């Protein structure tokens, strides 16, 4: 991390821009789009990320600001994590009670393999799909894959593609689907709160916002569960990837491609 040499506080341009974005976004406020039995919640943070992206294409934001902003995300996320912490403390008895669920839902992060890997294989992607689907493909996973397979390997290209996708679209996507899923599915908001710890601070915040807004009466518990789950993922996430997710993805990929080629052969035979 090269944060120490950058003098981030001096980049007044980036702070002023963020200040303006926050003013505008918070003034627009929260809006709801009803969709069948559910709602999509449009929150200020969603406008903020979209305005931020679009400002990159104006003279207001230069390459330098964009670089500073990347490091500033890391520092600003610490405040969110601190907030998670102080909300989780008072909920300690509840967290202990829900401890088994909190630990076991970490395994649920493997859900990407069961949903996305078959889709990737069906779409005809080859070994790229291993890099793409073994995890949500954030920085630690990019490091893991490039360390194991090399940066220009198919697996490396795969994880980079999902990394870029998640970087640009992750927070927007999570912000849109979390409120919708929580309002249309029978799954409890507290279960979704636990699910927000997916290994990315900004995606977690984007997923959590709609939950807090849609279920204000459970706000404190939702934040406490989300905080505990984020903490659990930040500590265990990489190890789950190394020891469970990646071997499992390899195995399933091998099994699926074998089946697929067998099917093709038998089709040809008929």
């Amino acid at each position, binding site marked *: 991390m090269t944060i120490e040499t950058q003098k981030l506080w001096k980049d007044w341009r980036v702070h002023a821009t963020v200040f303006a974005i926050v003013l505008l976004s918070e003034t627009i406020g929260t809006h709801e789009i009803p969709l069948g039995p559910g709602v999509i919640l449009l929150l200020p943070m969603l406008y903020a990320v979209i*305005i931020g992206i679009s400002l990159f294409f104006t003279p207001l934001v230069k390459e330098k600001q964009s670089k500073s*902003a990347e490091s500033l995300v890391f520092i600003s996320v610490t405040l*969110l994590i601190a907030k998670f912490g102080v909300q989780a*403390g008072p909920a300690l008895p509840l967290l202990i009670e829900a401890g088994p669920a909190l630990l076991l839902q970490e395994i649920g992060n493997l859900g990407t393999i069961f949903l996305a890997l078959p889709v990737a294989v069906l779409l005809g992607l080859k070994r790229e799909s291993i890099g793409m689907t073994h995890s949500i493909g954030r920085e630690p996973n990019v490091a893991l894959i490039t360390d194991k397979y090399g940066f220009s390997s198919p697996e490396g290209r795969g994880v980079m593609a999902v990394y870029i996708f998640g970087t640009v679209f992750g927070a927007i996507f999570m912000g849109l689907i979390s409120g919708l899923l929580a309002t249309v599915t029978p*799954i409890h908001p507290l279960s979704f709160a636990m699910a927000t710890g*997916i290994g990315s601070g900004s995606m977690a915040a984007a*997923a959590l916002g709609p939950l807090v807004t849609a279920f204000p009466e459970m706000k404190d518990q939702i934040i406490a569960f989300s905080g505990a789950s984020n903490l659990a993922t930040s500590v265990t996430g990489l190890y789950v990837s190394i020891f469970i997710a990646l071997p499992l993805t390899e195995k399933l990929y091998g099994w699926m491609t074998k089946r697929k080629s067998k099917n093709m052969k038998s089709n040809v035979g008929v």
Partner: protein
Amino acid sequence: MLKNIQEWILVLGIIGVVVLIGNYIGYDILPITALPGMVILILISLAGLVIGKLVPLKIPSIAYIGILGFILTVPNMPGSDQIVKWTADVSLLAIATPILAYAGIGIGRSWADFAKLGWKTIVVGMCVLLGTFLGSAIIAEIVLRFQGII
């Protein structure tokens, strides 16, 4: 190290001011009311960043920050009630907005790469996020129901 701390204090201070104003516009909490909570959050972050730098383990600073905030506010910890009361005035959503504004500005640089991704990556990428999120939610739901918590 001292340079780092100075940098962190200044940056967290700037972000803190932005959060306080967003907190006022969006959630009607006066900056002066939310100031003590904001200062506490900044101090927790700062302490966690420093610990992360000092301890030679491969544990991310955010883990220390989360644990520290947690320990300070567990029931019966001296001063915990006051910390909980103060930090409650800083809305989570008000913290999230500037984070995502910075993220957005940072993301801009990746746009050219993003535009080059094929539609297959977009489809698979959405399945990755959906699968991770829904997978955890389903397991949490099963266990919480089994335990009778929800």
